[in-house]
């Protein structure tokens, strides 16, 4: 028998942990269609109450940056320390910052 996990396309899975938080990448599943991908994502990644919402999208649809361009893309930010809001005092008791 052929191996379905090699024939089925890959889907990226994103989970919203709880209301108010954004979806975060959790991993990927193999599935033949979008509905199966959602069911596989639910069965694979939310068994321990990890989430309240799921996104799946075909991995092939992701456009990623070229690692060869990393120097031009990311290194110019290295000496722009003033872009970090680290010069403010954060009051005690503020969370999620």
């Amino acid at each position: 028998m052929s191996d379905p996990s090699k024939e089925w396309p890959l889907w990226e899975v994103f989970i919203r942990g709880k209301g108010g938080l954004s979806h975060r990448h959790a991993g990927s599943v193999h599935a033949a269609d979008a509905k199966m991908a959602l069911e596989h994502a639910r069965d694979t990644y939310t068994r321990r109450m990890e989430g309240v919402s799921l996104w799946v999208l075909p991995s092939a649809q992701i456009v990623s940056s070229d690692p060869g361009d990393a120097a031009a893309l990311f290194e110019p930010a290295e000496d722009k320390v003033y872009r970090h809001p680290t010069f403010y005092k954060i009051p005690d008791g503020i969370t999620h910052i």
Partner: protein
Amino acid sequence: MDALATYALRLGDDSLILGQRLGEWCGHAPALEVDLSLTNVALDQVGQATHFLGLAGAIENAGRDADALAFRRDVMDFTNCLLVEQPNGDFAQTIARQFLFSHYQALLFEQMARVKDERFAAIAAKALKEVSYHATLASDWVVRLGDGTEESKARMVAGLDWMWRFADELFVMDDVDAAAIAAGAGVDKSALRAEWDARIDAVLADATLARPASRRPVLGGRAGHHSEHLGHLLSDMQFLQRAYPDATW
């Protein structure tokens, strides 16, 4: 065991045996993701069994807990319907069994969640969310396989053909059901049939599958008259407690 305890026992046995059957797929499913799907359903069923068998033991009040009922009864004492003990066969046959049974369970628990007896209502309300997902999962696979390739369709037809004769037993009413209804715990299963037929037919139409022809129903599970398959299942499931009674680890 009185009628109400027997009623809880039947519910527990249905879930327990199906959970054990599905567990046999662990490590053997066609894909890792499907392996997790099937074993998730299995664990939901085992959870339901724990609740219903625990309730049966509590009503019986003879010192037997859920474990005692699961692991220390012989095959003739099991009251599950014949459908859930049917062998897994191929993936399509397993899906056929799940499809027929999960739609029945969803309709049953929808009603049971509203009965007066809070013990039954509470278990049913929790289980309803689980079995609703099982029904969706199984229906999606019936459509995918039925409306898929020539081979997947042939397998889906064969799987439904195997399971179909055991569907009627789900809706059979007897004295135990009547007593449970009178006690404010039971559901009139015969009244669920029309809606079950409608849901099954809608999915089959979606799957471009014909409804299997009506056949002489096979009955007897509630009275302990089981197929040869159940004994083999129990020999696996009960081995440890029979070989090493009260073993803990």
